[in-house]
C-alpha cells in the first residue's frame, strides 16, 4: 500500500510536469533551441539558475556532509552567494555580447572574446569531459528516492535502474524542446524542490527541535570550522568555497542560463531573487542535517539523513521528500544534457564542418545521443564502477574550475589573449588531474588546499605571464577594445 503512495506521488508530479511541457512550443532554429530565444524574465531566470545550480544530491551528499561534519557543510551556501555576486557582474557583458553576436554557448563566447577557434574547442571539450561524469552520477542519484519510496519493496539494484529509466525518458522533452522546455520545467521543478522543499525542511526541523534532537545534543565539534592545526588543514574550507564560486560559472549548463534571459536587467534581478532562496533553503537544510545527526541511523548512513528524517512523518511526508529530490535532480541533469548537446553541436560539429549551425536538429541529435550514452554508462557502472565514477566526478570538478581564468579574465580584462588562454587551460587542467590523483582530498603541505585551487594558482600565473610576455598584435588589440567598448555603445560591430 505504501509503495502506491510513494510511487504514486512521483507519478502525479511527473504528470503535472509533462502537461506543462506538452504546452511548450518548440524551437524554429538552433539559436532558439540553445538559448530559448533569449526570452525569459527575472522570475523564470532566477528559478532556472537555482534549479540548475543545486543538483538533487544537495539533499543527499551535501546534507550528508553537514550531518557527518557539521558547520563546514554550509560551504555550499557560501559559494552559492559568491556565484550570485559573479552572476550580477557577468550579466552585462555576457548578455550583451550574446545578443549582439548570437552566442549560444559558453565556448561560443570564449571563441568570440579570444578570436580563436582553438580556445573555443578546448573550452567545449573540457566542459563536456568534466560534466559527463556528473550527468551519469545524477542519473544514479535517484536510487535512494525509489528505494525509500518503495518502503522496502524494491531493492537498491532495481531502484537505480528505475531512477535512470525515469531520467532518460524525461529527456525526450529536453531533446524536443531544448532550452525553452528546460527553463519552463525548471520553474515547476524549482518551486517543488526549493520553495516547497524549504517548507518541508522547516517543518521537519521544528519536529527535531521539539523531540529531543536540538542543537544542544549535537557534538560540539560540529560547530567548529577547520583552522590551523585541524585535520583538514587551515586552507581546506577556503579551497572548497573558492572552487565552488569560481567553478560555478565554468560549467556549461550554468553559464548558458545567462543567455536565456531577455535583458541584462533581468539577469541582475534574477540574481537578487535567487540569493534569499539559496541562503534560506541551503541554511535550513544544513541546520536540519546537523540537528538530525543525533537521529538513529544517521551516523551510519549520513547520506540518507534527508530520507531518515522525513521517515518520521510517515509515508506521505517521505513521498514529498522524495519528490523534492526528484525535482532537483531533473533540473540539473536535463540542463547538463541540453547544454552539452548544444555545445557539441555548436562548437565541435559546427567548427569541424566550418559552418555556423542553424538547424535545431543538430542540437536534438547531440542531446539525444548524449542522453542514451549517459544512460548506458549509468546502467553499466551501477555496481562495479560506481566508486570509480565518484572519483572521476571529483577529478572533473577540480578540472572544470581550470576554465575560470580564461572565462573571468577574458570577460573582465582586455589584455588576456588566446595564447594565454590555451596555455592556462591546458596546463591548469593537467596540473589539477595529476594533483587530484596524488591528493584526492587535500594537499597537506599546502595547508589543506585542494588540487583544483593549487592548479588554479598555476593556471592564473600562466595566464597573466603569457598575456604580458606575448601580447596580442595591434589588430587583435583593436578588435578586443571594440568588443569591450561595444558594451557602452549602441552600434553593432562585426564578428
Amino acid at each position, binding site marked *: 500500500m505504501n509503495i502506491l503512495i510513494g510511487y504514486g506521488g512521483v507519478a502525479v508530479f511527473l504528470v503535472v510536469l509533462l502537461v506543462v511541457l506538452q504546452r511548450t512550443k518548440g524551437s524554429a532554429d538552433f539559436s532558439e533551441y540553445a538559448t530559448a530565444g533569449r526570452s525569459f524574465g527575472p522570475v523564470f531566470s532566477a528559478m532556472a539558475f537555482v534549479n540548475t545550480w543545486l543538483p538533487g544530491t544537495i539533499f543527499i551528499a551535501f546534507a550528508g556532509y553537514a550531518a557527518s561534519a*557539521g*558547520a*563546514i557543510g*554550509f560551504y555550499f*551556501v*557560501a*559559494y552559492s*552567494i*559568491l556565484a*550570485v*555576486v559573479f552572476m*550580477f*557582474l557577468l550579466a552585462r557583458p555576457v548578455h550583451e555580447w550574446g545578443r549582439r553576436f548570437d552566442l549560444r554557448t559558453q565556448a561560443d563566447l570564449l571563441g568570440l572574446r579570444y578570436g580563436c577557434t582553438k580556445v573555443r574547442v578546448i573550452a567545449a571539450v573540457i566542459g563536456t569531459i568534466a560534466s559527463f561524469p556528473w550527468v551519469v552520477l545524477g542519473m544514479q542519484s535517484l536510487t535512494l528516492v525509489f528505494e525509500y519510496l518503495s518502503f522496502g519493496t524494491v531493492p537498491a539494484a532495481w531502484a537505480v535502474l528505475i531512477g535512470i529509466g525515469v531520467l532518460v525518458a524525461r529527456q525526450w522533452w529536453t531533446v524536443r524542446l531544448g532550452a525553452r522546455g528546460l527553463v519552463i520545467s525548471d520553474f515547476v521543478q524549482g518551486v517543488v524542490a526549493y520553495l516547497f522543499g524549504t517548507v518541508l525542511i522547516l517543518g521537519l526541523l521544528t519536529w527535531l527541535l521539539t523531540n529531543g534532537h536540538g542543537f544542544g545534543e549535537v557534538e*560540539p565539534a560540529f*560547530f*567548529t*570550522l577547520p*583552522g*590551523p592545526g585541524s585535520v583538514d588543514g*587551515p*586552507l581546506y*574550507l*577556503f579551497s572548497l*568555497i*573558492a572552487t565552488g*564560486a569560481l567553478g560555478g560559472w565554468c560549467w556549461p549548463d550554468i553559464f548558458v542560463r545567462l543567455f536565456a534571459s531577455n535583458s541584462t*536587467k533581468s539577469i*541582475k*534581478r534574477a*540574481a*537578487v531573487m535567487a*540569493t*534569499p532562496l539559496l*541562503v534560506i533553503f*541551503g*541554511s535550513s537544510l*544544513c*541546520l536540519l542535517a*546537523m540537528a538530525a545527526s543525533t537521529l538513529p541511523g544517521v551516523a551510519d548512513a549520513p547520506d540518507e539523513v534527508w530520507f531518515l528524517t522525513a521517515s518520521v512523518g510517515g509515508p506521505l511526508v517521505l513521498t514529498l521528500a522524495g519528490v523534492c529530490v526528484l525535482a532537483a535532480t531533473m533540473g540539473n541533469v536535463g540542463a547538463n544534457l541540453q547544454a552539452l548537446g548544444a555545445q557539441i553541436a555548436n562548437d565541435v560539429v559546427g567548427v569541424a564542418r566550418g559552418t555556423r549551425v542553424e538547424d535545431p536538429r543538430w542540437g536534438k541529435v547531440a542531446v539525444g545521443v548524449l542522453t542514451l550514452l549517459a544512460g548506458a554508462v549509468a546502467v553499466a557502472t551501477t555496481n562495479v564502477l560506481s566508486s570509480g565514477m565518484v572519483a572521476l566526478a571529483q577529478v572533473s570538478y577540480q578540472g572544470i574550475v581550470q576554465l575560470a581564468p580564461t572565462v573571468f579574465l577574458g570577460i573582465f580584462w582586455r589584455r588576456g589573449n588566446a595564447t594565454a588562454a590555451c596555455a592556462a587551460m591546458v596546463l591548469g587542467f593537467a596540473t589539477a588531474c595529476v594533483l587530484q590523483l596524488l591528493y584526492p582530498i587535500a594537499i597537506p603541505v599546502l595547508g589543506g588546499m585542494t588540487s583544483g585551487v593549487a592548479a588554479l594558482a598555476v593556471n592564473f600565473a600562466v595566464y597573466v605571464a603569457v598575456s604580458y610576455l606575448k601580447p596580442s598584435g*595591434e589588430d587583435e*588589440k*583593436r578588435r578586443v*577594445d*571594440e568588443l569591450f*567598448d561595444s558594451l*557602452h555603445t549602441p552600434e553593432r560591430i562585426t564578428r
Partner: protein
Amino acid sequence: MATPVPRPPKTRAARIVLAIAVFNFVILLFPPLTWIVGQGGVWFFLISGVIGVLSLLVMYRVDASAEED
C-alpha cells in the same frame, strides 16, 4: 601607430557595486576570518548569508538608480 581608444570612465555606481562584490569575497574567502570564529561556524555562515542577500539588494538598487540617471 593606432590611436588608443578612450576607455569609458567608471561611474560611481560601478565602483560601489564592485566594492560590495569585493567585500563579499573578502568575508567568505579570507581564511583568518573563518579561523577566528571558532565555535561560531554556523553563525558565521548565517550572518554572511544575510550580508550576501543585503549586498545583492544594494548592488541592484545602486545599479538601477545609475541607469535611471
